[in-house]
Protein backbone atom coordinates (compact mmCIF):
# COMPACT_ATOMS: atom_id res chain seq x y z
CA UNK A 1 0.00 0.00 0.00
CA UNK A 2 1.31 3.49 -0.75
CA UNK A 3 1.69 5.81 2.16
CA UNK A 4 -1.06 8.09 0.85
CA UNK A 5 -3.58 5.26 1.05
CA UNK A 6 -2.66 4.42 4.63
CA UNK A 7 -2.84 8.04 5.75
CA UNK A 8 -5.74 7.76 8.16
CA UNK A 9 -4.95 4.44 9.81
CA UNK A 10 -4.34 4.75 13.55
CA UNK A 11 -3.25 1.72 15.52
CA UNK A 12 -1.36 2.74 18.63
CA UNK A 13 -2.72 6.29 18.94
CA UNK A 14 -6.36 5.38 18.27
CA UNK A 15 -7.39 6.31 21.81
CA UNK A 16 -5.42 9.56 22.00
CA UNK A 17 -7.59 12.48 22.98
CA UNK A 18 -10.43 10.30 24.30
CA UNK A 19 -11.33 11.49 27.83
CA UNK A 20 -10.00 9.11 30.52
CA UNK A 21 -8.36 6.94 27.87
CA UNK A 22 -6.04 5.55 30.57
CA UNK A 23 -8.93 3.83 32.37
CA UNK A 24 -9.86 0.19 31.77
CA UNK A 25 -13.59 0.94 31.47
CA UNK A 26 -12.96 3.42 28.65
CA UNK A 27 -10.50 1.07 27.00
CA UNK A 28 -13.04 -1.76 27.03
CA UNK A 29 -15.88 0.45 25.81
CA UNK A 30 -13.73 1.21 22.80
CA UNK A 31 -13.27 -2.44 21.97
CA UNK A 32 -10.18 -3.16 24.04
CA UNK A 33 -9.74 -6.69 25.34
CA UNK A 34 -11.19 -8.55 22.35
CA UNK A 35 -7.79 -9.35 20.91
CA UNK A 36 -6.64 -11.03 24.11
CA UNK A 37 -9.82 -13.14 24.24
CA UNK A 38 -9.25 -14.15 20.63
CA UNK A 39 -5.58 -14.93 21.32
CA UNK A 40 -6.51 -17.31 24.14
CA UNK A 41 -8.56 -19.34 21.66
CA UNK A 42 -5.49 -19.84 19.46
CA UNK A 43 -2.29 -21.84 19.86
CA UNK A 44 0.78 -19.83 20.99
CA UNK A 45 2.78 -20.94 17.94
CA UNK A 46 0.04 -19.61 15.64
CA UNK A 47 0.36 -16.20 17.31
CA UNK A 48 4.11 -16.13 16.77
CA UNK A 49 3.51 -16.99 13.11
CA UNK A 50 0.96 -14.20 12.76
CA UNK A 51 3.40 -11.67 14.17
CA UNK A 52 6.08 -12.96 11.79
CA UNK A 53 3.68 -12.54 8.91
CA UNK A 54 2.90 -8.96 9.98
CA UNK A 55 6.45 -7.69 9.32
CA UNK A 56 6.29 -5.85 12.64
CA UNK A 57 9.74 -4.50 13.44
CA UNK A 58 11.05 -3.30 16.79
CA UNK A 59 10.18 0.33 17.42
CA UNK A 60 12.89 0.99 19.98
CA UNK A 61 15.54 1.82 17.42
CA UNK A 62 17.10 -1.24 15.83
CA UNK A 63 14.06 -2.33 13.79
CA UNK A 64 14.62 -6.03 14.40
CA UNK A 65 11.71 -8.24 13.20
CA UNK A 66 9.57 -8.90 16.29
CA UNK A 67 8.21 -12.30 15.24
CA UNK A 68 11.73 -13.54 14.58
CA UNK A 69 12.85 -12.33 18.00
CA UNK A 70 9.95 -14.20 19.61
CA UNK A 71 10.82 -17.37 17.71
CA UNK A 72 14.32 -17.43 19.28
CA UNK A 73 12.86 -18.53 22.62
CA UNK A 74 13.95 -22.18 22.89
CA UNK A 75 11.22 -24.75 22.17
CA UNK A 76 10.29 -27.62 24.45
CA UNK A 77 11.22 -25.98 27.75
CA UNK A 78 9.89 -27.73 30.87
CA UNK A 79 6.50 -26.34 31.86
CA UNK A 80 7.75 -24.72 35.07
CA UNK A 81 10.82 -23.14 33.46
CA UNK A 82 10.57 -19.35 33.61
CA UNK A 83 10.40 -17.28 30.43
CA UNK A 84 10.31 -13.51 30.83
CA UNK A 85 8.83 -10.70 28.82
CA UNK A 86 10.39 -7.35 29.61
CA UNK A 87 8.97 -4.11 28.27
CA UNK A 88 11.56 -1.49 27.49
CA UNK A 89 9.90 1.75 28.61
CA UNK A 90 13.21 3.45 29.33
CA UNK A 91 12.70 5.98 26.56
CA UNK A 92 15.64 8.36 26.64
CA UNK A 93 17.00 8.66 23.12
CA UNK A 94 17.26 12.41 22.56
CA UNK A 95 14.49 13.59 20.25
CA UNK A 96 12.16 10.71 21.15
CA UNK A 97 8.97 11.35 23.11
CA UNK A 98 6.47 8.74 21.92
CA UNK A 99 6.53 6.02 24.58
CA UNK A 100 5.92 8.55 27.34
CA UNK A 101 2.72 9.69 25.64
CA UNK A 102 1.69 6.13 24.75
CA UNK A 103 2.06 5.10 28.41
CA UNK A 104 0.12 8.10 29.63
CA UNK A 105 -2.74 7.85 27.15
CA UNK A 106 -3.21 4.14 26.66
CA UNK A 107 -1.56 1.93 29.29
CA UNK A 108 -4.22 -0.78 28.82
CA UNK A 109 -3.26 -1.24 25.18
CA UNK A 110 0.25 -2.01 26.40
CA UNK A 111 -1.08 -4.44 29.01
CA UNK A 112 -3.18 -6.21 26.39
CA UNK A 113 -0.15 -6.44 24.09
CA UNK A 114 1.83 -7.89 26.99
CA UNK A 115 -0.89 -10.43 27.79
CA UNK A 116 -0.93 -11.68 24.21
CA UNK A 117 2.87 -11.72 23.90
CA UNK A 118 3.23 -13.54 27.22
CA UNK A 119 0.72 -16.17 26.19
CA UNK A 120 2.54 -16.64 22.88
CA UNK A 121 5.91 -16.91 24.61
CA UNK A 122 4.93 -18.98 27.65
CA UNK A 123 5.78 -16.14 30.02
CA UNK A 124 4.23 -16.09 33.49
CA UNK A 125 5.79 -12.94 34.89
CA UNK A 126 6.43 -9.83 32.83
CA UNK A 127 8.24 -6.66 33.85
CA UNK A 128 7.83 -3.11 32.62
CA UNK A 129 11.09 -1.24 33.03
CA UNK A 130 10.04 2.40 33.05
CA UNK A 131 12.41 5.31 33.03
CA UNK A 132 12.95 6.68 36.55
CA UNK A 133 12.26 10.29 35.63
CA UNK A 134 8.79 9.42 34.32
CA UNK A 135 7.12 9.51 37.71
CA UNK A 136 3.69 10.51 36.54
CA UNK A 137 3.65 7.90 33.79
CA UNK A 138 4.76 5.31 36.35
CA UNK A 139 1.79 6.24 38.51
CA UNK A 140 -0.60 5.97 35.56
CA UNK A 141 0.77 2.57 34.53
CA UNK A 142 0.73 1.32 38.12
CA UNK A 143 -2.94 2.28 38.37
CA UNK A 144 -3.66 0.50 35.10
CA UNK A 145 -1.94 -2.66 36.36
CA UNK A 146 -3.99 -2.53 39.55
CA UNK A 147 -7.16 -2.17 37.49
CA UNK A 148 -6.18 -5.18 35.37
CA UNK A 149 -5.60 -7.27 38.52
CA UNK A 150 -8.94 -6.18 39.95
CA UNK A 151 -10.66 -7.12 36.68
CA UNK A 152 -9.13 -10.60 36.78
CA UNK A 153 -7.03 -10.11 33.65
CA UNK A 154 -3.83 -10.49 35.68
CA UNK A 155 -2.94 -12.86 38.51
CA UNK A 156 -5.72 -15.31 37.69
CA UNK A 157 -5.86 -18.61 35.78
CA UNK A 158 -7.75 -18.06 32.55
CA UNK A 159 -8.90 -20.85 30.24
CA UNK A 160 -6.71 -21.07 27.16
CA UNK A 161 -6.54 -23.25 24.07
CA UNK A 162 -2.80 -23.78 24.25
CA UNK A 163 -0.20 -24.58 26.86
CA UNK A 164 -1.56 -26.35 29.91
CA UNK A 165 -5.11 -25.26 29.18
CA UNK A 166 -4.84 -22.21 31.41
CA UNK A 167 -2.86 -19.00 31.31
CA UNK A 168 -1.94 -16.67 34.15
CA UNK A 169 0.25 -13.57 34.04
CA UNK A 170 1.70 -11.27 36.67
CA UNK A 171 3.07 -7.86 35.75
CA UNK A 172 5.52 -5.79 37.79
CA UNK A 173 6.36 -2.18 37.11
CA UNK A 174 10.05 -1.52 37.77
CA UNK A 175 11.34 2.05 37.89
CA UNK A 176 14.80 2.90 36.63
CA UNK A 177 16.86 5.62 38.26
CA UNK A 178 18.43 7.73 35.56
CA UNK A 179 20.79 6.03 33.13
CA UNK A 180 20.46 6.18 29.34
CA UNK A 181 22.39 2.92 28.98
CA UNK A 182 19.54 1.00 30.64
CA UNK A 183 17.64 1.39 27.37
CA UNK A 184 20.16 -1.07 25.90
CA UNK A 185 18.43 -4.39 26.43
CA UNK A 186 21.18 -6.22 28.32
CA UNK A 187 22.02 -3.14 30.38
CA UNK A 188 18.32 -3.00 31.20
CA UNK A 189 18.35 -6.64 32.33
CA UNK A 190 21.32 -6.05 34.62
CA UNK A 191 19.59 -3.01 36.06
CA UNK A 192 16.42 -5.03 36.62
CA UNK A 193 18.54 -7.56 38.51
CA UNK A 194 19.69 -4.86 40.93
CA UNK A 195 23.06 -4.14 39.38
CA UNK A 196 24.72 -1.28 37.58
CA UNK A 197 23.26 -1.05 34.09
CA UNK A 198 26.30 -2.46 32.37
CA UNK A 199 25.50 -4.12 29.02
CA UNK A 200 26.38 -7.80 28.67
CA UNK A 201 28.47 -9.49 26.06
CA UNK A 202 26.39 -11.22 23.39
CA UNK A 203 26.08 -14.13 22.83
CA UNK A 204 24.38 -15.47 24.81
CA UNK A 205 21.44 -13.42 23.58
CA UNK A 206 18.59 -12.65 25.99
CA UNK A 207 16.32 -15.14 24.21
CA UNK A 208 18.61 -17.89 25.54
CA UNK A 209 19.97 -16.37 28.74
CA UNK A 210 18.31 -13.13 29.72
CA UNK A 211 16.67 -11.97 32.93
CA UNK A 212 17.73 -14.12 35.90
CA UNK A 213 19.53 -16.34 33.35
CA UNK A 214 16.20 -17.41 31.83
CA UNK A 215 14.99 -17.03 28.22
CA UNK A 216 13.77 -13.46 27.82
CA UNK A 217 12.21 -11.24 25.18
CA UNK A 218 12.72 -7.49 25.50
CA UNK A 219 10.27 -5.41 23.45
CA UNK A 220 9.66 -1.69 23.14
CA UNK A 221 6.36 -0.15 24.31
CA UNK A 222 5.15 0.83 20.83
CA UNK A 223 6.08 -2.59 19.43
CA UNK A 224 3.84 -4.40 21.91
CA UNK A 225 1.00 -1.93 21.45
CA UNK A 226 0.74 -3.06 17.82
CA UNK A 227 0.12 -6.68 18.81
CA UNK A 228 -3.64 -6.51 19.63
CA UNK A 229 -4.49 -5.12 16.17
CA UNK A 230 -2.30 -7.73 14.49
CA UNK A 231 -4.26 -10.44 16.31
CA UNK A 232 -7.64 -8.89 15.50
CA UNK A 233 -7.05 -7.95 11.87
CA UNK A 234 -4.36 -10.39 10.85
CA UNK A 235 -0.67 -10.23 10.08
CA UNK A 236 -1.32 -9.82 6.38
CA UNK A 237 -3.41 -6.68 6.91
CA UNK A 238 -0.63 -5.19 9.02
CA UNK A 239 2.08 -6.11 6.54
CA UNK A 240 0.08 -4.59 3.66
CA UNK A 241 -0.26 -1.31 5.52
CA UNK A 242 3.48 -0.86 5.51
CA UNK A 243 6.21 -0.64 2.95
CA UNK A 244 8.68 -3.31 1.90
CA UNK A 245 9.61 -5.43 4.88
CA UNK A 246 8.29 -2.95 7.44
CA UNK A 247 4.69 -3.52 8.46
CA UNK A 248 2.19 -1.19 10.10
CA UNK A 249 2.38 2.51 10.81
CA UNK A 250 5.17 4.55 12.31
CA UNK A 251 5.10 6.97 15.18
CA UNK A 252 7.36 9.93 14.70
CA UNK A 253 8.20 12.58 17.23
CA UNK A 254 9.04 15.80 15.44
CA UNK A 255 10.88 18.49 17.38
CA UNK A 256 13.17 21.43 16.80
CA UNK A 257 12.55 24.10 14.18
CA UNK A 258 9.13 23.22 12.80
CA UNK A 259 5.91 25.22 13.10
CA UNK A 260 3.94 22.33 14.62
CA UNK A 261 6.10 19.90 16.55
CA UNK A 262 4.35 16.82 17.88
CA UNK A 263 3.93 13.07 18.09
CA UNK A 264 2.22 11.69 15.00
CA UNK A 265 1.18 8.22 13.90
CA UNK A 266 1.85 8.21 10.17
CA UNK A 267 1.96 5.72 7.34
CA UNK A 268 5.22 3.85 6.98
CA UNK A 269 7.17 5.36 4.09
CA UNK A 270 5.97 8.96 4.17
CA UNK A 271 8.87 11.09 2.88
CA UNK A 272 10.58 13.57 5.20
CA UNK A 273 9.53 16.43 2.92
CA UNK A 274 5.79 15.70 3.36
CA UNK A 275 6.27 15.21 7.07
CA UNK A 276 7.98 18.54 7.59
CA UNK A 277 6.02 20.73 5.16
CA UNK A 278 2.56 19.13 5.18
CA UNK A 279 2.19 17.56 8.63
CA UNK A 280 4.36 19.92 10.67
CA UNK A 281 3.67 23.20 8.91
CA UNK A 282 7.18 23.82 7.62
CA UNK A 283 10.02 25.85 9.08
CA UNK A 284 8.92 28.95 11.02
CA UNK A 285 10.28 32.46 10.81
CA UNK A 286 10.89 32.45 7.06
CA UNK A 287 13.97 30.34 7.56
CA UNK A 288 15.19 27.41 5.50
CA UNK A 289 15.79 23.87 6.58
CA UNK A 290 19.43 23.02 7.09
CA UNK A 291 19.16 19.38 8.09
CA UNK A 292 17.56 16.88 10.40
CA UNK A 293 18.28 13.96 12.65
CA UNK A 294 16.10 11.10 11.37
CA UNK A 295 15.71 8.77 14.35
CA UNK A 296 17.11 9.96 17.64
CA UNK A 297 20.46 11.61 18.25
CA UNK A 298 22.41 8.38 17.66
CA UNK A 299 21.69 8.47 13.96
CA UNK A 300 23.73 10.27 11.30
CA UNK A 301 21.87 13.41 10.14
CA UNK A 302 20.44 14.14 6.72
CA UNK A 303 20.99 17.41 4.91
CA UNK A 304 18.43 19.48 2.97
CA UNK A 305 19.07 17.57 -0.26
CA UNK A 306 17.99 14.25 1.23
CA UNK A 307 14.37 14.99 2.14
CA UNK A 308 12.63 12.84 -0.46
CA UNK A 309 13.64 9.58 1.16
CA UNK A 310 10.76 7.59 2.68
CA UNK A 311 10.73 7.13 6.45
CA UNK A 312 11.11 3.36 6.54
CA UNK A 313 13.68 1.07 8.13
CA UNK A 314 15.41 -0.33 5.03
CA UNK A 315 15.22 2.85 2.95
CA UNK A 316 17.26 4.78 5.48
CA UNK A 317 20.05 2.22 5.54
CA UNK A 318 20.27 1.80 1.78
CA UNK A 319 18.51 4.46 -0.33
CA UNK A 320 20.88 5.73 -3.03
CA UNK A 321 19.65 9.29 -2.54
CA UNK A 322 21.30 9.39 0.88
CA UNK A 323 25.02 10.10 0.80
CA UNK A 324 27.29 7.56 2.47
CA UNK A 325 28.76 8.69 5.73
CA UNK A 326 32.49 8.96 5.19
CA UNK A 327 34.58 6.64 7.22
CA UNK A 328 38.29 6.95 7.43
CA UNK A 329 39.88 5.14 4.48
CA UNK A 330 41.61 1.96 5.46
CA UNK A 331 39.46 1.40 8.52
CA UNK A 332 37.08 -1.41 7.73
CA UNK A 333 33.57 -0.77 8.83
CA UNK A 334 30.81 -3.25 8.39
CA UNK A 335 27.20 -2.65 8.95
CA UNK A 336 24.33 -4.82 7.87
CA UNK A 337 26.32 -7.17 5.67
CA UNK A 338 29.04 -4.88 4.41
CA UNK A 339 26.84 -1.94 3.47
CA UNK A 340 28.33 1.47 3.84
CA UNK A 341 26.84 3.53 6.62
CA UNK A 342 23.99 5.80 5.58
CA UNK A 343 21.62 6.31 8.47
CA UNK A 344 18.81 4.52 10.32
CA UNK A 345 15.17 5.10 11.18
CA UNK A 346 16.01 4.51 14.83
CA UNK A 347 13.49 5.49 17.45
CA UNK A 348 11.41 7.83 15.28
CA UNK A 349 12.74 10.95 17.00
CA UNK A 350 13.12 13.48 14.20
CA UNK A 351 14.94 16.69 15.11
CA UNK A 352 14.76 19.43 12.49
CA UNK A 353 17.18 22.34 12.43
CA UNK A 354 17.09 25.49 10.29
CA UNK A 355 19.82 27.54 8.65
CA UNK A 356 20.34 29.69 11.74
CA UNK A 357 21.63 26.65 13.66
CA UNK A 358 25.21 26.39 14.84
CA UNK A 359 25.63 22.81 13.67
CA UNK A 360 28.98 22.38 15.39
CA UNK A 361 27.48 23.40 18.73
CA UNK A 362 24.60 21.00 18.11
CA UNK A 363 27.03 18.16 17.43
CA UNK A 364 29.06 19.12 20.51
CA UNK A 365 25.88 18.89 22.63
CA UNK A 366 25.23 15.41 21.28
CA UNK A 367 28.81 14.38 22.09
CA UNK A 368 28.45 15.77 25.61
CA UNK A 369 25.39 13.57 26.02
CA UNK A 370 27.19 10.37 25.01
CA UNK A 371 30.21 11.21 27.15
CA UNK A 372 27.86 11.66 30.11
CA UNK A 373 25.93 8.47 29.41
CA UNK A 374 28.81 6.14 28.57
CA UNK A 375 28.57 3.51 31.30
CA UNK A 376 32.32 3.29 31.76
CA UNK A 377 32.59 -0.42 31.18
CA UNK A 378 34.77 -0.48 28.06
CA UNK A 379 37.68 1.81 27.37
CA UNK A 380 37.11 2.93 23.75
CA UNK A 381 33.68 4.33 24.57
CA UNK A 382 34.45 5.63 28.07
CA UNK A 383 37.58 7.53 26.99
CA UNK A 384 36.68 8.16 23.35
CA UNK A 385 33.30 9.74 24.03
CA UNK A 386 34.95 12.17 26.47
CA UNK A 387 37.66 13.06 23.96
CA UNK A 388 35.06 13.65 21.24
CA UNK A 389 33.00 15.83 23.58
CA UNK A 390 36.01 17.94 24.54
CA UNK A 391 37.46 18.32 21.05
CA UNK A 392 34.07 19.06 19.49
CA UNK A 393 33.29 21.60 22.24
CA UNK A 394 36.54 23.44 21.65
CA UNK A 395 35.84 23.60 17.92
CA UNK A 396 32.35 24.91 18.68
CA UNK A 397 33.77 27.59 21.00
CA UNK A 398 36.11 28.77 18.26
CA UNK A 399 39.19 27.38 19.99
CA UNK A 400 39.77 24.45 17.66
CA UNK A 401 43.12 23.44 16.22
CA UNK A 402 44.06 22.73 12.63
CA UNK A 403 43.87 18.94 12.69
CA UNK A 404 40.72 18.66 14.79
CA UNK A 405 38.45 17.33 12.04
CA UNK A 406 40.79 14.41 11.34
CA UNK A 407 41.31 13.94 15.06
CA UNK A 408 37.57 13.57 15.67
CA UNK A 409 37.16 11.19 12.73
CA UNK A 410 40.08 9.16 14.03
CA UNK A 411 38.74 8.90 17.55
CA UNK A 412 35.28 7.98 16.24
CA UNK A 413 36.70 5.22 14.07
CA UNK A 414 38.59 3.90 17.06
CA UNK A 415 35.36 3.49 19.06
CA UNK A 416 33.08 1.92 16.45
CA UNK A 417 33.07 -1.85 16.46
CA UNK A 418 35.29 -2.07 19.53
CA UNK A 419 32.76 -1.93 22.33
CA UNK A 420 30.43 -4.35 24.11
CA UNK A 421 27.25 -2.51 23.19
CA UNK A 422 26.03 -0.11 20.53
CA UNK A 423 26.53 3.04 22.61
CA UNK A 424 29.98 3.17 21.01
CA UNK A 425 28.39 3.30 17.56
CA UNK A 426 25.72 5.68 18.81
CA UNK A 427 28.52 8.13 19.64
CA UNK A 428 30.41 7.50 16.42
CA UNK A 429 27.56 7.70 13.93
CA UNK A 430 26.40 11.26 14.63
CA UNK A 431 30.02 12.44 14.89
CA UNK A 432 30.99 11.02 11.50
CA UNK A 433 27.60 11.94 10.06
CA UNK A 434 27.88 15.61 11.04
CA UNK A 435 31.49 15.72 9.84
CA UNK A 436 30.47 14.28 6.46
CA UNK A 437 27.29 16.25 5.80
CA UNK A 438 28.24 19.55 7.43
CA UNK A 439 31.99 19.61 7.02
CA UNK A 440 31.92 23.19 5.76
CA UNK A 441 30.51 24.34 9.11
CA UNK A 442 33.36 22.69 10.99
CA UNK A 443 35.92 24.16 8.60
CA UNK A 444 34.43 27.63 8.96
CA UNK A 445 34.75 27.38 12.75
CA UNK A 446 38.38 26.29 12.45
CA UNK A 447 39.14 29.14 10.07
CA UNK A 448 37.70 31.59 12.59
CA UNK A 449 39.76 30.18 15.42
CA UNK A 450 42.92 30.27 13.30
CA UNK A 451 42.20 33.90 12.51
CA UNK A 452 41.62 34.74 16.17
CA UNK A 453 44.88 33.08 17.09
CA UNK A 454 46.82 34.97 14.43
CA UNK A 455 45.41 38.31 15.58
Amino acid sequence: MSWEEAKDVKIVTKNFGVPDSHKLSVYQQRGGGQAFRKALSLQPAALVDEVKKSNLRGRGGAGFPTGLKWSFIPKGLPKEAPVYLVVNADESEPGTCKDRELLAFDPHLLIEGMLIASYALGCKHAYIYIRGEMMREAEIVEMAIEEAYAAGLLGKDLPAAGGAGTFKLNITLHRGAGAYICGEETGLLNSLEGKRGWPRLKPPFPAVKGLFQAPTVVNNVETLMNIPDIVMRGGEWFANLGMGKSGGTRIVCVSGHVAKPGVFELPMGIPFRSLIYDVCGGIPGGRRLKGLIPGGSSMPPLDASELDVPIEFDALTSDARIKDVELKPGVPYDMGGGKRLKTMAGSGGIVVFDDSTDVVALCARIMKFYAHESCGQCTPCREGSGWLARVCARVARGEGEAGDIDLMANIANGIAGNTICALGEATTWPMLGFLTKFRADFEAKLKLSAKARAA
Partner: protein
Amino acid sequence: MPLEFSAQSRARVEKALAQYPNKQAALLPVLHVAQDEFGHLPDEVLELVARTLELAPAHVFGVITFYTMFHREKHGRNELMVCTNVSCMLRGAYDMLHYLEKKLGIKAGETTPDGAFSIVEEECLAACANAPMMICGNQYFLDLTEKKLDTIIDDLRKRWQDRNPAGGAPGGGAATRTLFGIGPLPGAGS
Protein backbone atom coordinates in the same frame (compact mmCIF):
# COMPACT_ATOMS: atom_id res chain seq x y z
CA MET B 1 21.05 2.14 67.28
CA PRO B 2 21.14 1.27 63.61
CA LEU B 3 18.73 3.10 61.32
CA GLU B 4 15.40 1.40 60.48
CA PHE B 5 12.67 1.95 57.89
CA SER B 6 9.34 3.38 59.03
CA ALA B 7 6.41 0.95 59.06
CA GLN B 8 5.09 2.50 55.86
CA SER B 9 8.39 2.14 54.05
CA ARG B 10 8.82 -1.37 55.42
CA ALA B 11 5.51 -2.32 53.78
CA ARG B 12 6.71 -0.92 50.47
CA VAL B 13 9.95 -2.89 50.81
CA GLU B 14 8.02 -6.13 51.46
CA LYS B 15 5.82 -5.48 48.46
CA ALA B 16 8.89 -4.96 46.27
CA LEU B 17 10.57 -8.13 47.54
CA ALA B 18 7.54 -10.20 46.53
CA GLN B 19 7.99 -9.20 42.89
CA TYR B 20 11.35 -10.84 42.20
CA PRO B 21 12.92 -14.29 42.50
CA ASN B 22 15.83 -12.90 44.55
CA LYS B 23 16.46 -10.05 46.97
CA GLN B 24 19.09 -8.27 44.89
CA ALA B 25 16.59 -7.51 42.13
CA ALA B 26 14.63 -5.38 44.61
CA LEU B 27 17.61 -3.03 45.02
CA LEU B 28 16.41 -0.20 42.77
CA PRO B 29 12.86 -0.18 44.18
CA VAL B 30 14.21 -0.29 47.75
CA LEU B 31 16.64 2.55 47.05
CA HIS B 32 13.69 4.60 45.76
CA VAL B 33 11.81 3.84 48.99
CA ALA B 34 14.85 4.77 51.07
CA GLN B 35 15.39 8.03 49.23
CA ASP B 36 11.70 8.91 49.54
CA GLU B 37 11.92 8.41 53.31
CA PHE B 38 15.36 9.82 54.13
CA GLY B 39 15.77 12.37 51.33
CA HIS B 40 19.18 11.12 50.27
CA LEU B 41 21.39 8.08 50.67
CA PRO B 42 24.28 8.69 53.09
CA ASP B 43 26.29 5.80 54.59
CA GLU B 44 23.79 4.82 57.29
CA VAL B 45 20.95 4.57 54.76
CA LEU B 46 23.19 2.67 52.37
CA GLU B 47 23.97 0.20 55.17
CA LEU B 48 20.29 -0.16 56.03
CA VAL B 49 19.52 -1.05 52.40
CA ALA B 50 22.45 -3.48 52.24
CA ARG B 51 21.33 -5.14 55.48
CA THR B 52 17.71 -5.36 54.32
CA LEU B 53 18.63 -7.06 51.05
CA GLU B 54 21.63 -9.04 52.36
CA LEU B 55 23.96 -7.34 49.89
CA ALA B 56 27.53 -6.10 50.27
CA PRO B 57 27.55 -2.35 51.04
CA ALA B 58 30.12 -1.98 48.25
CA HIS B 59 27.63 -3.34 45.73
CA VAL B 60 24.95 -0.93 46.95
CA PHE B 61 27.45 1.93 46.74
CA GLY B 62 28.29 0.96 43.16
CA VAL B 63 24.64 0.97 42.19
CA ILE B 64 23.77 4.25 43.94
CA THR B 65 26.61 6.09 42.26
CA PHE B 66 25.81 4.63 38.82
CA TYR B 67 22.34 6.19 38.61
CA THR B 68 21.87 9.93 38.45
CA MET B 69 18.59 9.98 40.39
CA PHE B 70 20.13 8.56 43.57
CA HIS B 71 21.80 11.16 45.72
CA ARG B 72 24.52 10.69 48.31
CA GLU B 73 24.18 14.36 49.30
CA LYS B 74 21.19 16.42 50.39
CA HIS B 75 19.16 17.91 47.55
CA GLY B 76 16.61 20.68 47.44
CA ARG B 77 12.95 19.94 48.08
CA ASN B 78 12.11 21.03 44.57
CA GLU B 79 14.49 19.54 42.10
CA LEU B 80 14.20 21.47 38.85
CA MET B 81 15.38 19.12 36.12
CA VAL B 82 15.92 21.26 33.04
CA CYS B 83 16.49 19.45 29.76
CA THR B 84 19.17 21.01 27.56
CA ASN B 85 19.51 18.21 25.02
CA VAL B 86 19.23 18.81 21.25
CA SER B 87 15.49 19.36 20.80
CA CYS B 88 15.30 21.68 23.79
CA MET B 89 18.60 23.37 22.95
CA LEU B 90 17.26 24.29 19.51
CA ARG B 91 14.32 26.01 21.18
CA GLY B 92 16.19 28.02 23.78
CA ALA B 93 16.77 25.62 26.70
CA TYR B 94 20.05 27.24 27.68
CA ASP B 95 18.33 30.62 27.93
CA MET B 96 15.78 29.02 30.27
CA LEU B 97 18.51 27.36 32.35
CA HIS B 98 20.49 30.58 32.68
CA TYR B 99 17.35 32.52 33.55
CA LEU B 100 16.61 30.06 36.35
CA GLU B 101 20.21 30.21 37.59
CA LYS B 102 20.03 33.98 37.74
CA LYS B 103 16.61 34.00 39.36
CA LEU B 104 17.55 31.54 42.10
CA GLY B 105 21.14 32.72 42.50
CA ILE B 106 22.61 29.24 42.07
CA LYS B 107 24.28 27.31 39.29
CA ALA B 108 23.10 24.01 37.81
CA GLY B 109 24.11 21.27 40.23
CA GLU B 110 23.60 23.52 43.28
CA THR B 111 20.90 23.94 45.94
CA THR B 112 19.55 27.22 47.33
CA PRO B 113 20.70 27.92 50.93
CA ASP B 114 17.13 27.49 52.25
CA GLY B 115 16.94 24.02 50.67
CA ALA B 116 13.91 24.94 48.58
CA PHE B 117 15.36 24.43 45.10
CA SER B 118 18.03 22.51 43.28
CA ILE B 119 18.75 22.97 39.59
CA VAL B 120 19.87 20.00 37.55
CA GLU B 121 20.92 20.20 33.92
CA GLU B 122 19.22 17.12 32.52
CA GLU B 123 19.53 14.96 29.46
CA CYS B 124 16.51 14.33 27.23
CA LEU B 125 13.33 13.90 29.30
CA ALA B 126 11.14 12.64 26.46
CA ALA B 127 8.95 15.67 25.87
CA CYS B 128 10.80 16.93 22.80
CA ALA B 129 7.71 18.14 20.98
CA ASN B 130 7.08 20.57 23.84
CA ALA B 131 10.59 21.97 24.12
CA PRO B 132 11.99 23.66 26.12
CA MET B 133 10.79 21.81 29.19
CA MET B 134 11.65 20.72 32.72
CA ILE B 135 10.42 18.30 35.36
CA CYS B 136 9.89 18.89 39.04
CA GLY B 137 8.83 15.75 40.91
CA ASN B 138 6.08 14.18 38.84
CA GLN B 139 5.10 17.42 37.16
CA TYR B 140 6.09 18.26 33.63
CA PHE B 141 6.45 21.92 32.73
CA LEU B 142 6.25 22.24 28.96
CA ASP B 143 6.85 24.93 26.32
CA LEU B 144 8.75 27.05 28.86
CA THR B 145 9.13 30.81 28.65
CA GLU B 146 10.72 33.19 31.15
CA LYS B 147 7.27 34.34 32.18
CA LYS B 148 6.11 30.78 32.77
CA LEU B 149 9.20 30.11 34.87
CA ASP B 150 8.37 33.09 37.10
CA THR B 151 4.92 31.68 37.81
CA ILE B 152 6.20 28.14 38.33
CA ILE B 153 8.88 29.21 40.81
CA ASP B 154 6.41 31.40 42.74
CA ASP B 155 3.94 28.50 42.98
CA LEU B 156 6.53 25.97 44.04
CA ARG B 157 7.98 28.36 46.62
CA LYS B 158 4.58 29.07 48.08
CA ARG B 159 3.79 25.38 48.34
CA TRP B 160 7.17 24.76 49.97
CA GLN B 161 6.63 27.60 52.48
CA ASP B 162 3.18 26.28 53.35
CA ARG B 163 4.79 23.00 54.31
CA ASN B 164 7.66 24.67 56.16
CA PRO B 165 6.05 27.56 58.07
CA ALA B 166 9.22 28.26 60.06
CA GLY B 167 11.32 28.03 56.95
CA GLY B 168 12.05 24.58 58.41
CA ALA B 169 15.06 22.39 57.85
CA PRO B 170 15.03 20.73 54.47
CA GLY B 171 14.77 16.99 54.83
CA GLY B 172 13.18 14.55 52.45
CA GLY B 173 13.10 14.82 48.71
CA ALA B 174 9.72 13.19 48.51
CA ALA B 175 7.64 16.31 48.92
CA THR B 176 7.04 16.98 45.26
CA ARG B 177 6.31 13.35 44.55
CA THR B 178 3.00 13.15 46.36
CA LEU B 179 1.10 15.61 44.22
CA PHE B 180 -0.42 12.94 42.07
CA GLY B 181 -3.53 13.68 40.14
CA ILE B 182 -3.88 13.23 36.44
CA GLY B 183 -3.97 16.75 35.20
CA PRO B 184 -4.15 17.67 31.56
CA LEU B 185 -2.16 15.15 29.56
CA PRO B 186 0.58 16.30 27.19
CA GLY B 187 -0.50 17.49 23.78
CA ALA B 188 -0.60 14.67 21.27
CA GLY B 189 0.24 16.98 18.43
CA SER B 190 -2.22 15.53 15.98
